[in-house]
């Protein structure tokens, strides 16, 4: 009798922890990146627990959830930035255009040229604005001469909406820009190598509202050209800029679906509680 009760409870818990994936996006075949049963361990601690998700090229996908829910850790799996942390271990399968990115034959340098990243805190290199943008193209050999490079720099800065603000001072240090400009510089730096996916790890959390609005505008413009995955603390931001939303809690992916549905009619109780501000 007692065993039966425990089993029932375990089953119930399991159901509760199952990921709810909305029908309209149920694992499409043309996804840019797919993750299947991904676990991430920090030493002994499991930070991400069996997460499966598809990232579509044409949409902005937002990861939301309370602090420590594993969303940033999971994001860093997509360009193998967790490799730089000695104690981090990734299990499961992540594919980019059907290729397993954790396969030993996958070159991490090429992977990162295809999957760019923008960080929480703007991190321009202590070099000139021009050199910040030229850094990626140079290490990947994308420009054959100075004119090419000038073109890439101008195009990237223009696309990041920064060209008009900095065109007269390309030789100034990137670190001398304001916080919002620095973050746009970092986005320009990421798009300079023409990646296929851009990962953004809370790109606005260190910025003021006006700078945040500019970044959001920029994301809107970049949408469709790059697959964009953004981690954010700010639910309004996720609602404003994303088409797909994934809600993470305690290392689990709780619910993944159309942004509008997630925010207006979530299916999981935990999602509703979080969105209505009952926890987090």
């Amino acid at each position, binding site marked *: 009798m007692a065993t039966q009760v425990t089993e029932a409870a375990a089953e119930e818990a399991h159901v509760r922890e199952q990921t709810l994936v909305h029908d309209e996006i149920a694992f499409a075949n043309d996804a840019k990146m797919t993750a299947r049963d991904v676990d991430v361990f920090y030493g002994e601690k499991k930070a991400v627990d069996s997460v499966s998700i598809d990232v579509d090229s044409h949409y902005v996908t937002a990861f939301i959830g309370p602090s420590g829910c594993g969303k940033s850790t999971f994001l860093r799996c997509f*360009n193998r*930035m967790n490799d*730089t942390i*000695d104690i981090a271990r990734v299990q499961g399968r992540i594919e980019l255009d059907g290729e397993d990115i954790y396969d030993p034959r996958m070159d*991490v*340098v*090429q*992977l*990162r*040229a295809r999957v*760019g*990243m923008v*960080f929480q*805190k703007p*991190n*321009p*290199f*202590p*070099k000139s604005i021009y050199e910040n943008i030229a*850094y*990626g193209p140079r*290490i*990947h050999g994308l420009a054959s001469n100075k004119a090419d490079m000038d073109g890439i720099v101008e195009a990237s800065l223009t696309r990041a909406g920064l060209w008009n603000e900095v065109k007269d001072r390309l030789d100034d240090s990137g670190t001398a820009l304001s916080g919002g400009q620095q973050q746009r510089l*970092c986005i320009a*730096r*990421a798009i300079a*190598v023409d990646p296929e996916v851009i990962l953004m790890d809370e790109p606005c959390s260190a910025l003021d509202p006006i700078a945040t609005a500019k970044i959001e505008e920029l994301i809107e413009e970049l949408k469709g050209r790059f697959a964009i995955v953004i981690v954010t603390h700010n639910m309004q931001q996720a609602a404003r800029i994303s088409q797909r939303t994934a809600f993470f809690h305690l290392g689990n992916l709780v619910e993944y679906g159309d942004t509008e549905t997630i925010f207006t009619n979530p299916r999981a109780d935990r999602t509703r509680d979080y969105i209505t501000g009952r926890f987090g």
Partner: protein
Amino acid sequence: MSLGALALVLLGLTAITFAMTRMRANAFASGARPRDVHSRPAYHAVRAGLLALVPALFLLLVWLVIGDGIVADRTLDQLPQAAQPEAGIERQAFLTEMRSVARGDLPAAFNPAVNEAVPIYRETQASWTWLIGGLVVLLALIGGGYGWLKTAPDLRARTHVERFATIILALASLIAILTTFGIVLSLLYESLDFFSRVNPLEFIFGTHWSPQTAIRADQVGSSGAFGAVPLFWGTIFIGAIIAMAVAVPLGLMSAIFLTQYARPTARKILKPLLEILAGVPTVVYGYFAALTVAPAVRDAAIAIGIDSASSESALAAGVVMGIMIIPFVSSMADDALSSVPGAMRDGSLAMGATPSETIKKVLVPAALPGIVGGILLAVSRAIGETMIVVMAAGQAARLTINPLDSVTTVTAQIVQLLTGDQEFDSAKTLSAFALGLVLFVVTLLLNIYALAIVKRYREAYE
């Protein structure tokens, strides 16, 4: 009264004051609410004890410094006019002899006038000691009594004790600074003496170094030459060129390895090991340079056909000095690299840069000011280093760029000039002070400049 007895009395008085004040404070503090009593009894007791001890101790210390002079003066005043020594050296000799006899070190003085003065000296000394001893005890009593009387619930004893502690700490730090000033002043004083004998321009720009001064005018080699350029060159050649050619690449590379590539466990073992190198006494490096490296360098040079190779060479001293400096450069570079924000490294890696590209193009340029500052500090250490060059570099002051020649450095010359019996009024000996002054000024400027760079660099990332 002897000094020891006086000190004991003083300590006893302090202890009594402490105990009595404590009792008095306990009387009103026990049972009282904290807001009615400003300080706890222990603070009252310490305050009163300090009042008893400090002024009395101060008087005692002052007496210890100037007391003997006063006693001597009074003694001489009591002597008949004819027996009094003339001022200057004669007076000094008289007093020294008088004190020795009074202490019992000498059975009797050679100077009969001294023998007459001794009993007067003893008597004067005894009466003054009693006077001062009495004053010390009186002061302790007054101070202690005042502290005891003033002990009251609203007395801010805690504040006073804290302030006293602050003053003591400030004095402690002042002593180190004042000592440095004292050293600089004495260096300056002797150097000025030297420059009054030798033209400073000749010293700084002259290229011939042969420090000797004649005792008799007709002596051979009576004309010394004090052109210090060969020494400056030797110092720079060994300390800033050869040593840095060894230390900078090796130190930098080991820092890069330790901060970027080594696993945490390897780092935990290797970093302290490297730092142990910094703790090896320099004289040990000296042996190593003189007995192992220098002969090896000479043999290697002869083997490749350079017959003139000296067994004391700039190369041997410089290389060993470089090895000694490696931990220094490595730890400064390590600090500089570690303080580059991790976000910078992540940003570069996320662009698809390899770890070595990241180090070369982002981390080292970002850490460069810190690294340069560290190298300058290392240079300033290297040019002040003495033992290795004394043992391995040789004594020949020559201007050469051949690393196999023996050269000498400022520090090695200072050692040579000041070892053995020296007369302190000859230009030869005094030149050591001028050399020391130059060394001091150069290393001071290097340190200030290097620390300014490092500081500005740290601020950039905070």
